[in-house]
């Protein structure tokens, strides 16, 4: 069963990244008022174009870390996804402390993105890396609070138990602040839209500005895979995961994750990005207190009705 789960995790990442690439392009075309002329093979064209170009280097980069960063990013996406039950009893890594493992992956993602920016030895990637640390760390704090809030009704840190605790009512109904805050984390983890402080256009691509060829392709793929991973996690923790009538559980999980993926991509295209200092103020004064409030409300709710 575990072998099936591990294989499914890898397939889910691959398929999710592909779907995300297609939706991303379609979303951009929709917003731009273009004809949506995306095709299922279009991500392959981009991949082939990247692979047909040289992977350049800079003067005296931290080469080991630079080349490893995309791989590590992808590995974190896979590791984070591995604690999510894909169907009743099918989970690649059945930890008692699954949520903590996910939290560790979030923290390490910040490290990996910083390293990707740092090791290129060039200023735009470096600024991108700095900025990402400044924004990424507080966003991660927020996500820990909402995840703990989601774990409270389950009385367990295991993701499987959290899914099971939603048999009667989904967490998104019970704790409505949690899901939007967690989706913000998703935007931040995947360097997307309003939380794209690492790879943004005002920094000429930020941490990936000096990356080219196969390395760039790997980095972009890792970002999309992480997007898939976050979507699945969000649907497991807040939308009841594999729970649902009639259809088999795995299908429900995929459907819900697809919806979350679409919402994340739409948010990335529709929302404007603030300058980082303004965003810092917003996070520390509005979003973080909101996540405290979420935790307090869930605690009160469990005390009264639980």
């Amino acid at each position, binding site marked *: 069963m575990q072998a099936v789960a591990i294989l499914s995790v890898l397939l889910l990442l691959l398929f999710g990244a592909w779907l995300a690439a297609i939706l991303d392009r379609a979303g951009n075309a929709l917003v731009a008022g273009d004809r949506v002329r995306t095709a299922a093979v279009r991500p392959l064209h981009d991949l082939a174009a990247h692979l047909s170009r040289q992977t350049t280097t800079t003067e005296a980069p931290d080469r080991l870390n630079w080349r490893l960063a995309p791989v590590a990013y992808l590995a974190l996406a896979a590791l984070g996804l591995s604690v999510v039950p894909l169907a009743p009893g099918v989970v690649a890594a059945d930890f008692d*402390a699954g949520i903590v493992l996910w939290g560790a992956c979030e923290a*390490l993602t*910040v*490290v990996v993105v910083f390293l990707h920016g740092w090791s290129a030895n060039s200023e735009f990637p470096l600024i991108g890396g700095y900025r990402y640390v400044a924004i990424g*760390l507080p966003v991660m704090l927020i996500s820990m609070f909402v995840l703990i809030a989601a774990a409270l009704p389950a009385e367990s840190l295991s993701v499987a138990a959290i899914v099971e605790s939603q048999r009667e009512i989904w967490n998104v109904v019970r704790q409505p602040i949690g899901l939007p805050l967690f989706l913000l984390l998703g935007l931040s983890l995947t360097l997307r839209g309003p939380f794209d402080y690492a790879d943004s256009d005002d920094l000429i691509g930020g941490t990936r500005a000096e990356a080219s060829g196969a390395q760039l392709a790997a980095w972009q793929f890792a970002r999309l895979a992480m997007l898939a991973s976050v979507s699945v996690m969000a649907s497991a923790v807040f939308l009841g995961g594999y729970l649902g009538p009639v259809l088999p559980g795995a299908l429900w999980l995929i459907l819900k994750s697809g919806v979350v993926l679409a919402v994340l991509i739409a948010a990335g295209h529709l929302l404007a990005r603030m300058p980082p200092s303004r965003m810092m103020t917003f996070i520390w004064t509005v979003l973080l207190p909101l996540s405290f409030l979420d935790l307090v409300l869930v605690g009160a709710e469990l005390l009264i009705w639980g």
Partner: protein
Amino acid sequence: MGLIDDAAFLLLSTVAILSGWRVFATDSMVRASFLLMMSFIAVGLIMLLLAAPYIGLATVFMMAVEMMVMALFMVMFMMNPAGLNPMMMVHQHQLAIGAGVFAFVGLTAAVLFTDLPDDRVDPGAPVVHDLGVELLGNSMLIFETAGVTLLATMVGAVVLSSRSGRFGAADEGSRPPGLEVGGEPAGRQPVQGGGGHHHHH
């Protein structure tokens, strides 16, 4: 299973010790920080083997954040954070090596000559659950004390590191160190009339 555990332990402890040693042997400060993080991650994974999943993963989680901050401080405060210039910033080197070796040998001898208990934790025990019950049950006072200590630390850290102090700006009359002990201030000179801050444009 025992063999796999042993192999994993061997691998992880090698990583932990090697990366711990490389921390003080690499020129790049950023690499040093993340090597230390590697060491912590390896120790965290050993704890997973020792049936302490929460503590192990929490170590990984905490150390990733802590070493990220550490790396930023390295870049901020070191002259040569990328290690492009080779460097050796050590003092009392022989003594330090001696102390390190002595500590290792002493502790190892103590370990080897002590009759260690053998009361293995039951693999099926709900350790995370037990820990939670303990933290918010019998040991709640200790746990809360740790929390309050951390809060006090945060307040103290902010007070210490902020510029404006009770008696004016913290860098007022600040004086850069000399190139040798007790020497003339190097680099920028203290401004006449006090106040390390220059005009702000």
